[in-house]
């Protein structure tokens, strides 16, 4: 605080600040800082007596230099120093030693609340008022050492925890791949369905299953197991098995629900259950059976208007047997009637201000939905705009089904089953090569693949162009990102698979596009920017104009379009 004018007692050290490299005492190294040399010497003696090797400094700058060079285990600072004051020095020392805990004890002249608060706010762990007393200093040192030991013990025990967590995540990712293959591999692909599924965590508690019925009909199960993550997904496996096996055999809806209910009741703990929406459409496309246990309302858009398919049953896995009132219900339907199913994650997705997408916004879309039109693309785009890339808190599933003849040829479009006269062609292109796809005629024509398909090749070209545009969309593509254009970062390659399936009169193109961005940023919800989601919405919207069906599968990181004639 001030230079001492007089000193009584043993002679001063020649220069207390110019100490030679001290030997570390048994208790560790302490930094003592005071501009009053007499005080400093006293402090040094006391600390040495406690067993510290002591490093000293008489001003703030020197204190920080000493701290950086010697890494002491304890700092005792005068709160008031010339130049940079002690409080500021304390703050900087704390920020320099964030990783390990270095206790700071402040020395103050005044014990008033304001001075003490200033010391503590700056990161001080304790304080002492002058004049110094050995006993009090010793007590403070012991207390701060206890803090330090506790801190060290805690950080030592959390380190293996971090490692464990990392390994756990890795195993979850592996298990997820195994599970999704087991659960989704048996789904039938059909042009009648547009669907989207996304997970809040690695595992998706929302289930979307599709299977054909022996009469050529189709059965769909959208379900939401309580909770997220592994616990939710484990219950999904027996459900998927029962669903597929029983649909293929043509077992009726009620029996399937009863069987799934029994399985879940036996496997899930008492506080877990599965909300589910099951729909079956008969092979003649005239009858729809539905069952809603605990899911948000489904919606049927027929010629006569909009019908709400509200939850009428308990979720599955709650009771040993389904009560009689919980039986499936039936409706008659016609071609071009549309069905919309959603999980509550769609309604609960929040925007940056915390407002949910909600029933109100869904209502607006439902009211604007005219018969025979598809709702999926515009609804998904609006939903993406709403949540503006903020992280998902719940798993999400959305599905639209259009009733019509397309339902019936669903199983003919299995991947890998090329029929006579059909072909498949695939390519992986780096971003700088992707533009060479165009004109597509010049690529496929010489191979003879477009022979007899000249009339359709223009549409095929347009579909691919839409997919390509989203690949180079702002925020991900090379055209808009100078660092990519400069070759600084290698962007993800674009994978394209085109299949041609001849049908008795006409045929279908199935175009799949994937690159890392499709599944990654659009699905995880963490890194997606609004421009990404808008790009997705636009692409899906324009593809719907061109195609019979568009499927966006976030899990596989893929957009698939079916164009048939």
């Amino acid at each position, binding site marked *: 605080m001030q230079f001492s004018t007089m000193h009584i007692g043993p002679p001063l050290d020649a220069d207390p600040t110019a100490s030679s490299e001290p030997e570390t005492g048994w208790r560790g190294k302490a930094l003592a800082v005071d501009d009053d040399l007499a005080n400093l010497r006293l402090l040094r003696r006391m600390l040495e007596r406690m067993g510290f090797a002591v490093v000293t400094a008489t001003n703030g700058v020197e204190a920080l230099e000493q701290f950086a060079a010697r890494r002491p285990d304890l700092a005792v600072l005068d709160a008031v120093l010339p130049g940079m004051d002690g409080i500021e020095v304390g703050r900087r020392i704390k920020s320099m030693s964030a990783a390990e805990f270095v206790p700071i004890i402040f020395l103050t002249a005044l014990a008033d609340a304001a001075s003490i608060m200033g010391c503590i706010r700056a990161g001080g762990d304790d304080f002492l008022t002058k004049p110094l007393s050995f006993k009090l200093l010793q007590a403070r040192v012991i207390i701060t050492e206890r803090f330090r030991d506790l801190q060290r013990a805690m950080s030592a025990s959390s380190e293996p925890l971090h490692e464990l967590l990392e390994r756990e995540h890795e195993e979850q990712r592996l298990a997820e791949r195994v599970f999704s293959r087991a659960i989704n591999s048996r789904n039938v692909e059909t042009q009648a369905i547009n669907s989207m599924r996304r997970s809040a965590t690695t595992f998706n508690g929302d289930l979307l299953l599709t299977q054909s019925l022996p009469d050529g009909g189709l059965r769909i199960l959208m379900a939401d197991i309580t909770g997220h993550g592994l616990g939710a997904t484990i219950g999904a496996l027996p459900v998927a098995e029962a669903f597929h096996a029983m649909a293929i055999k043509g077992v009726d809806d009620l029996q399937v629900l009863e069987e799934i209910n029994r399985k879940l009741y036996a496997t899930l703990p008492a506080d877990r*259950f599965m909300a589910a929406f099951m729909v079956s459409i008969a092979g003649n496309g005239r009858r729809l059976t539905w069952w809603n*246990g605990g899911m948000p309302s489904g919606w049927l858009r027929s010629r006569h208007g909009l019908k709400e398919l509200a939850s009428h049953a308990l979720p599955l896995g709650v009771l040993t047997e389904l009560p009689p009132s919980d039986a499936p219900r039936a409706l008659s339907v016609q071609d071009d009637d549309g069905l919309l199913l959603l999980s509550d994650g769609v309604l609960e997705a929040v925007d940056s201000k915390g407002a949910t997408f909600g029933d109100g916004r869904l209502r607006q879309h439902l009211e604007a939905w005219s018969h025979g039109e598809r709702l999926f693309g515009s609804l998904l785009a609006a939903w993406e705009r709403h949540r503006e890339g903020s992280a998902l808190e719940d798993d999400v599933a959305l599905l639209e089904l259009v009733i019509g003849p397309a339902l019936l040829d669903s199983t003919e479009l299995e991947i890998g089953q090329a029929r006579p006269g059909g072909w498949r062609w695939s390519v992986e292109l780096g971003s700088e090569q992707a533009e060479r796809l165009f004109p597509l005629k010049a690529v496929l024509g010489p191979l003879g693949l477009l022979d007899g398909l000249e009339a359709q090749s223009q549409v095929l070209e347009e579909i691919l162009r839409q997919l390509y545009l989203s690949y180079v969309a702002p925020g991900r593509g090379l055209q808009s990102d100078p660092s990519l254009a400069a070759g600084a970062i290698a962007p993800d390659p674009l994978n394209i698979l085109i299949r041609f399936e001849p049908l008795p009169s006409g045929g279908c193109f199935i175009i799949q596009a994937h690159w890392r961005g499709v599944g990654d940023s659009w699905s995880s919800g963490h890194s997606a920017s609004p421009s990404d989601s808008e790009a997705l919405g636009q692409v899906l919207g324009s593809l719907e104009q061109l195609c019979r069906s568009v499927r966006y599968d976030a899990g596989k990181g893929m957009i698939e379009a079916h164009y048939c004639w």
Partner: protein
Amino acid sequence: MGVTARSDAEKSQVIISVDGRFDFSQHKVFRDAYKDATGKSTKFVVDLTDASYLDSSALGMLLLLREFVGSDPKRVRIRGANEDVARVLKIANFDKLFTVD
């Protein structure tokens, strides 16, 4: 915020009031509110007047309470749910399991 339980020995009933968000964070306190009730005929009232939100893990907690009373729908009443909370209970059709006022 939280769960409070009030015992009414005369009516042999326990009133469990939930304040704020009824979600997984209330799991332990909610169970503690009923687990020591001994009487075979003790009735429970879950008062949701001050509950602002209810999620599927809260539905799970209600199922555990239902299990505790031997699945007797008359022994658990749920009352006071606001519009949002009532909608969640309605969608889950919990009026088939509990007496919902």
